[in-house]
């Protein structure tokens, strides 16, 4: 019966009208919704009810969104979607590095929001976490043998190219900041070497035949922030 349970979503935003409209959209899409209008109340809600997903506004009156994230991460494993405003790239990056999974820039459309929520909730279910192998589009990745096939043909990836691909696949539908990828794969001293990352992204896209010029690509660019790997681009927005 567990599958029947409606996913529980906590909305943290200080604007009542935004909360109400989000509630309409989410309830209509079949989610059950709770609300909090401050960071303090949000932490209480999370401790009491353990939501399946948190929508968190970065501009709360009592605490910065990043502080709320740091406080909630130890007690809440659920994915967190950040709501941010235009021009606040630094805020987004800080929030993503503090443990948020994805972000949307206000004003956003309801369709966009629901697509992101679906993708984030998919990640939570074990079916989406890669085991020994993973498939997306025409690509088959074998983690144990470090082999990649494209339409059954072997694709030769270098050691680092494979590591980059693996990192994306194990973090499907989550925004990875440049800093995070560089620190994880090249070490903390390379945190500013974004030219490495651009180069490897170009190589990966070329070798895997993933189009950068169309919306259907699996490796999506978040300008100035990072990348998001989408295992199933057509199911999303």
């Amino acid at each position, binding site marked *: 019966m567990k599958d029947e349970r409606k996913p529980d979503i906590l909305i943290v935003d200080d604007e009542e009208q935004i909360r109400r409209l989000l509630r309409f959209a989410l309830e209509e899409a079949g989610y059950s919704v709770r609300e909090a209008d401050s960071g303090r109340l949000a932490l209480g809600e999370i401790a009491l009810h353990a939501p399946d997903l948190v929508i968190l506004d970065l501009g709360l009156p009592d605490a910065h969104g990043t502080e709320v994230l740091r406080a909630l991460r130890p007690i809440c494993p659920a994915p967190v979607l950040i709501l941010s405003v235009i*021009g606040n790239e630094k805020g987004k990056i800080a929030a993503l590095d503090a443990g948020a999974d994805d972000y949307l820039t206000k004003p956003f459309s309801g369709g966009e929001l629901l697509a992101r929520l679906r993708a984030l909730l998919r990640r939570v279910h074990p079916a989406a976490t890669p085991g020994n192998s993973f498939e997306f589009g025409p690509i088959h990745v074998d983690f144990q043998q470090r082999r990649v096939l494209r339409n059954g043909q072997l694709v030769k990836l270098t050691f680092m190219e494979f590591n980059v691909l693996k990192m994306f696949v194990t973090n499907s539908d989550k925004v990875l900041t440049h800093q995070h990828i560089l620190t994880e794969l090249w070490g903390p001293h390379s945190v500013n070497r*974004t030219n490495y990352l651009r180069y490897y992204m170009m190589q990966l896209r070329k070798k895997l035949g993933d189009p950068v010029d169309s*919306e259907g690509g699996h490796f999506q660019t978040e300008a100035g922030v990072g990348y998001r790997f989408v295992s199933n681009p057509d199911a999303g927005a």
Partner: protein
Amino acid sequence: MLSGIQTNTSNFALAWDYAKVATVIALITVVGQFAPLSYHALGYVYLFGVIALSLSIRRWPALAAAILSGAAWDFFFVPPKLSFSGIHFDEGLLLTTYFAVALIGSQLTALRASANRAELFAESERMHQTLLDSVSHEMMTPLAVFRSSIEQLATQDPTRREQVILELKVATQRLDRLVSNLLNQNRLESGVLRPNVDWCDCHELVVAARRSAGVKIGDHPLTLDIPMDLPIFRADAALMEQVISQLLVNAAIHTPPGTSIKVVAGLSADSTKVLITVSDNGLGVPEEIRDSLFDKFTRGHNARKGGLGLGLSIVKGFMRAQGGEVSVESPPGGGARFTLSLPYEKSDSIPLE
């Protein structure tokens, strides 16, 4: 929104005044040593110096000029030379004139400055008023649409409802664009904009721009001509996304539906610049407004009603902030072509594996 009135009371300006005083008086003193003039005549030369200075400097530096002149004259020229000697009545009178002149002169300078300031202030008030008028007009229109649409939504006629919803969408987009343009202009003028320049891939920038322009490009087909081997270059990705999407939206708005928009990218012939051009097939930009096109509140002659004329001024501001430029031309074949240029340097090599 508007740059504040400059009140030149910075320490630097004051130091500059004192430097002028010291230079002029030192010059008179040195020249006086060699000039065949009586010490009385030299007293008047100092007086002219104080007059000239006090007309261009503030009160305290002017008083300092008076004191310094008096002291220098007395010390170097009033006999016995090279000592502060007691002075007679007529010499004392001349010394007092220094102070009177310094006070009157600097007062005049101050008056002139405040008149200037008042003029600047009036000008800035006028700009504020213009801005406020156009912003409130631009905001009221979508608000009026919201209000009447909400009343119309009560209608039972399904086609009417659909129309109303479409109107709401258009009004929302308009308000959205207005607010983000105002925010961006403000970021530029208040100096909080700190470009985060980093290595960028042109393909990614253009795709992100197209995504953020979204439905506003409407039914204009978009062709991209970006070489696969175009190297990465340094830019602020978020700013470039907005710049390119602004140019795409502009092209879509100012050209007939169905006409195509083309984005071409490449290195300049001498490989010192990255060039990204956005061209359309519209009427082009008339020669006479090409220079003013990037100024704020400037709008094309045949621009549709609405809009503040901020879009291209933001494009220019964002490009300059990254050390780049934007220009426009109307090639002989018709249409407008906007060229973005950014300085190009080769990235250091990627470590071999």
